[in-house]
């Protein structure tokens, strides 16, 4: 976790000691404390003296090293490379001057400030690089130059100036930069930007800006994005990241120029997340031909000319520059390297994989990913021409041995491992997760203790099971059921992800003893927005209630009652309280509540309150008198199951009344609620005699459109058949449109239809309907045909009816039906030749 080894080298051109190396050495037996060693050389390999300083705490290490560097500077030493770079600053080659200026900025030695300002005064083509370096060096004397550059029209110079002003912390200069950037915004975006507070992140404001961005002209969209990024601030940066992560075609004309500018700005600001978003998109776009040719206006001379946009050369340049930036970070700002590299790795998604082909694997063509994570993987071969990494041989798929490290700058990862937690929390690619997990468990086992609650929560939903395991272990370690971390629980409970809330519920269950006797916490958990949490909390409270003191139960009952009698803040918020009231506190509530209050709950309360009221009402037999049977019948048809159940209980207690007037119960048999219907059926089967309703009642049951009521009606019809007028019953059933009842009626008719022409002719239309039904029911049709045939054979008048019905049906195209009908007709004709029939027509 701490810095080890050589941290700084310094150089002096003259004297007996020309080289100095400052290194950090751990102190054996004193963990967390180090010493600084200064080694002096005449030249490399020729040591002339060593000094040791310390011991120091690791926290004060940076300051001590800076002090030592200042002392050595006083002796004439400068940071290694500075002198050479200063010399090259005067090179006739503009490229060399630019590169040396940039290097000076990275080295960070303020000795370079004056030479750089002198160089800037000459206004060579390397001016942007000089200004950028001055910004990195952070010397306030460069502020006037930076401000002047920030006011330029040319994008590269304006960008360098604006970013230098930002880096120098020049508040007044930054205000000017911001004002100019706002003025550059298209009108719609400018108005939208002025309407929001850019200094704070706000999701709604971000959505508004996104909407405005979407409506802008394509040529203005990314221009405004660059200007917003120049303005900076949480809202603008969030908008830029979101837009860039959503837009897959950043490489198109009018977009790429500004995307590239944002990328450059992000490296100057060391804004890892924005850098990662663009770097990932460039990597993905480089996989297939993406360049276009368009006529665009040059930023340099303002001329419009045909230009290749996002060419292969550009792609290679940008990708390599991105890695070079990371290398510089690793060398000069190691703490930043791991942060930015972690952001890049976390930006990749599983869908960024490609199908392996030949010696290429899933990540072969993702240059930056390979440089950061697999640079020292001996199984792979890097091709600098096309920036791909391929498998050396077929054996390359064999897993690496334990302890083998493949990432770039392993010592930097070891010195600054905090971003590994970022990877564990936010990386979506399993290999990245594996890398982070391996690093943490092998070298930084104490790291999870530093994880924030949010990081821990995110680790719980990681794609790598071992990461989840790690998070759970840390969660278990942190969570003490006897002294729960309520703040952590709050974070878990308020998370959007269901799986996290499930963990919260599990933890809440573990520490239930700590809150099920605390009314405030009960109210909070049972009234939580999450349904699972509400339900579990209610169950835990119910489990704890039997052992609770009487006063506590009473207090809780009053509190629950108060909540149930009030308005429901959101749908379902009363559910848990209703359960507690119904299943755990009914005794206490019955003691507190009068019948009027219960009825008020049923009439006006929330759905949950109605449920609670209904369950309480069922245990009040005196309610029968007060409510009256009609009101109870209406309650039996209520939408609330508990209210219906209480009505059932009350009706069950007033059987004597129902016996006197069973028609009241009859209304319930056709209720839309199954439980009420079945309750009515049970009463009609048992204590209340349905026969008292007579034929009208039983036919009324059969007349229902509900199958279960019809079935009950059929059951009653058969049970009381002997006491009913069978002819009338059949006549009525015959009018039912349901095929089921018709089948029942056919069976009854075949078995019980009275003898004679009158009874048969009354059902003629019914038999016609049974035969001419399009839906096939062969058994029913056969029964009807045979029945008609048999009845027709008994006398001539019945033969007329049968011949009429069968004569029409015989023209059916159904072979079996036709043969059956024809057979019946022939028999009837043979028996009664004088009866008119369709036989002639059929023949």
């Amino acid at each position, binding site marked *: 976790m701490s810095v080890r080894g050589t941290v700084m080298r310094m150089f002096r051109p003259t004297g007996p000691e020309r080289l100095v190396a400052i290194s950090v050495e751990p102190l054996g037996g004193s963990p967390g404390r180090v010493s600084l060693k200064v080694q002096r050389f005449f030249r490399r390999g020729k040591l002339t003296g060593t000094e040791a300083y310390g011991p120091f705490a690791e926290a004060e290490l940076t300051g001590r090293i800076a002090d030592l560097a200042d002392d050595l500077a006083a002796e004439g030493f400068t940071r290694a490379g500075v002198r050479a770079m200063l010399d090259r600053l005067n090179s006739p080659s503009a490229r060399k001057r630019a590169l040396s200026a940039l290097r000076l900025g990275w080295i960070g030695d303020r000795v370079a400030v004056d030479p750089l300002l002198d160089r800037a005064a000459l206004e060579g083509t390397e001016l942007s690089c000089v200004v950028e370096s001055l910004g990195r060096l952070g010397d306030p004397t460069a502020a006037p130059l930076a401000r002047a550059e920030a006011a330029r029209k040319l994008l590269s110079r304006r960008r360098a100036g604006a970013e230098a002003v930002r880096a120098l912390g020049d508040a007044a200069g930054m205000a000017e930069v911001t004002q100019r950037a706002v003025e550059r915004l298209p009108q719609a975006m400018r108005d939208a930007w002025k309407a929001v507070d850019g200094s704070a992140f706000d999701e709604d404001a971000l959505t508004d800006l996104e909407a405005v961005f979407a409506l802008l002209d394509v040529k203005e969209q990314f221009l405004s994005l660059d200007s917003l990024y120049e303005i900076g601030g949480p809202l603008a940066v969030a908008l830029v990241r979101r837009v860039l992560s959503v837009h897959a075609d950043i490489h198109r004309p009018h977009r790429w120029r500004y995307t590239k500018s944002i990328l450059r700005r992000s490296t100057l600001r060391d804004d890892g997340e924005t850098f990662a978003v663009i770097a990932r998109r460039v990597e993905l776009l480089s996989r297939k031909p993406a360049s276009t040719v368009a006529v665009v206006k040059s930023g340099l001379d303002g001329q419009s000319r045909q230009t290749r946009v996002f060419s292969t050369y550009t792609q290679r340049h940008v990708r390599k520059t991105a890695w070079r930036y990371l290398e510089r970070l690793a060398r000069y700002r190691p703490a930043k390297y791991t942060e930015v590299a972690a952001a890049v790795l976390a930006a990749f998604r*599983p*869908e960024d*994989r490609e*199908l*392996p082909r030949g010696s290429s694997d*899933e990540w072969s063509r993702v240059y930056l990913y390979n440089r950061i994570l697999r640079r020292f993987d001996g199984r792979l071969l890097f091709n600098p021409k096309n920036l791909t990494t391929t498998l050396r041989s077929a054996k390359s*798929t064999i*897993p690496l041995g334990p302890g083998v490290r493949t990432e770039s700058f392993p010592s930097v990862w070891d010195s600054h491992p905090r971003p590994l937690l970022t990877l564990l929390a936010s990386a979506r*690619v*399993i*290999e990245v997760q594996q890398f982070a997990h391996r690093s943490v468990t092998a070298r930084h086992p104490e790291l999870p203790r530093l994880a924030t609650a949010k990081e821990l929560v995110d680790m719980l939903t990681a*794609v790598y099971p071992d990461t989840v395991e790690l998070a759970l272990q840390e969660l278990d370690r942190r969570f003490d059921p006897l002294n729960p971390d309520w703040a952590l629980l709050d974070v878990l409970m308020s998370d959007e992800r269901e799986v996290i809330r499930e963990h919260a519920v599990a933890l809440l269950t573990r520490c239930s003893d700590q809150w099920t006797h605390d009314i405030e916490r009960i109210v909070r958990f049972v009234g939580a927005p999450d349904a699972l949490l509400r339900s579990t909390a209610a169950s835990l409270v119910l489990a704890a209630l039997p052992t609770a003191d009487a006063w506590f139960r009473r207090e809780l009952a009053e509190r629950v009652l108060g909540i149930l009698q009030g308005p429901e803040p959101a749908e379902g918020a009363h559910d848990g309280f209703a359960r507690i009231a119904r299943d755990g506190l009914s005794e206490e509530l019955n003691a507190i509540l009068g019948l009027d209050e219960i009825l008020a709950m049923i009439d006006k309360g929330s759905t949950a309150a109605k449920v609670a009221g209904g369950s309480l009402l069922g245990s009040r037999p005196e309610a029968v008198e007060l409510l009256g049977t009609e009101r109870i019948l*209406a309650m039996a048809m209520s939408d609330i199951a508990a209210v219906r159940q209480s009505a059932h209980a009350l009706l069950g207690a007033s059987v004597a009344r129902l016996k006197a007037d069973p*028609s009241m119960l009859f209304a319930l048999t056709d209720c839309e609620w199954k439980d009420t219907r079945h309750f009515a059926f049970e009463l009609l089967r048992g204590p209340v005699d349905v026969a008292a*309703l007579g034929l*009208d*009642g039983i036919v*009324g049951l059969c*007349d*229902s*459109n509900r199958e279960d009521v019809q079935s009950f009606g059929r059951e009653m019809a058969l049970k009381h058949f002997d006491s009913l007028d069978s002819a009338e019953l059949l*006549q*009525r059933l015959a*009018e039912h*449109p*349901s095929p089921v009842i018709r089948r029942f009626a056919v069976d009854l008719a075949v078995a019980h239809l009275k003898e004679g022409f009158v009874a048969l002719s009354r059902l003629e*239309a019914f038999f*016609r*309907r049974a*035969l*001419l*039904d*399009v*839906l*096939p029911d062969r058994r029913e049709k056969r029964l009807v045909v045979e029945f008609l045939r048999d009845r027709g054979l008994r006398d001539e008048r019945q033969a007329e009816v049968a011949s009429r019905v069968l004569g*029409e*049906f015989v*023209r*059916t*195209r*159904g072979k079996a039906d036709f043969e059956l009908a024809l057979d019946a007709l022939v028999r009837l004709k043979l028996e009664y030749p004088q009866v008119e029939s369709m036989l002639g*027509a059929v023949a």
Partner: protein
Amino acid sequence: MIVEFKYAGQSRIVSGLRDTHVGLATNSVRDPAFFRGTMGSPTLFREAMASLYSVVVSDYKFHPRDRLAFKAWLDEQDRKFLANLGNRTEQAKLRIESLESRRAVLDQRRIDRLKPFYRARAEFFEWVYTHQYELKYLLDPVITVHPDELSFEAFSKDESSYARVGVKYDLFEKIDEFACGTTNIDFSSTLHGELDRMRSYRRTRFDIDPSGLAMAMEGGSSHKEKKIDLPESWVKGFLQVQSTMTLGLTRLRIEPVDLYNLCRFLKRHKARTSPRAMRWELVPGKRARVVFEPWETAIEMGASAVYDGPKPLTIRTWGRDRLSTLARIIPTAQRIDVFLAGTGLPTIWLVDLGEITFTLALSGWTDNDWTSGAGRFDLLSRRMDASPLELTATWDALKAQRRGTESGLSLVTGLGVEKTRSALSYLCQVGRAMYDLGGGVYRQRELFPEPFTVKEAIAAVVAPAPSEASPAGQKAQTIFGSGGVLITARRPVSNGYKLSGSVKGVDGYRYRPMLGVDAAGRILEATCTCAWSQKHGLTQGPCEHVLALRLGHMHRLEAEGA
């Protein structure tokens, strides 16, 4: 056009042990039409209304399969595949397999546990869908109280079927009072369910009244309002049906068992490949045959279906599954008249239930619906000139009598049969009258709530006839105006004229249309050598060459008359 429906009450049927009360709430924005009576044969009415309902809710248009679930499954497979790409070791694969199987078990348990919830949710969605559908999209049937009958008219959901139930007053034991007029009735699936409970052994009180049955539940409101964006095409659909009904149609009388055989066959056979037409083979003096493609199964109609036309005809119609909406009324039907217009043209089924007449008009095929399809049957008829005064006079006469034949109304107006016919045609075109195919009479039926005024009459007359306003009609005028029409043969026949001619089209080529028209200029049959006619026949209306030939014919008739 936003049409407002306001119901002071709710349509409801209350069935007691001995009585049934049918209360149909009418649109209070429309005419105060009402009817009160007691039904003699409620089961017949029940069956007819059940069929009307099955037409209203029917949708036989092609709906592609919902592949969302399949696509989600494919995405899941892709995700799994990509997630597994990084796991190369056997051990990892085995572990994944075991975890997957464990997850499958847990998933199944979760599904089992949540089954009641899913069921309840599905029921809730169904309830919401039904209610919202009825509230927002279901166009309530148009009901008209005539002096001799009640009529209910509606279109199917796919707008390819039109149904009309005409209930004669003979169905009622007793009629207390009624006021003629046209309005809408509040119609819902619940009402349909309640209709099924009508029985002849219960005295059935039947009221059509603005308040319906004002029996709101405690705490609930019986007041109901709907605002439906009535498509103009829907109105046009009504007019198209009228145009088709006044065409010269081939009529066949079949027996209920014939329709039973057709429906039974369709129920049992589903064609998976084309052709899928129902082919009518008509040979003079012989019984009509219906052949089902592609099986070529022929069903011969009964003795009453002997074709009496002059020459053999083969007519193919599509969308035959729509016939199943008639299945319910087959057992109660006494006779059925089928009216055929031609191949790919509409078919009209007139089912006589005794006191009730059920009319089902099917468009040529399901996608060629009445309301938005390309069929322009109004082009086939020809409208003669009628002044606004003549129009108003005819409308007044029709309003006074509520119904009448062309000749009967001409006696009242004193305009002569031809003028009256033209005026009636105008009134049909503007939705003020309808033609009752079963009764052979014109009836007053106001499709719009606003009363008919002189202003509207002037507008109707000034507006060009469909045959002139349509692109084909305008081209025909141009052709005729430029002298491009040459009648090569004209032969008087029993029902009008047979014509053939040579027409120089707007493209400069000559075509040879042949035409059969009645005395009023209504096209009975037509063919042409142009590509349009070869492709569509008359299924999308006549081509400009046929219309131009008719113009030439009518011009010559007028010249001869002069």
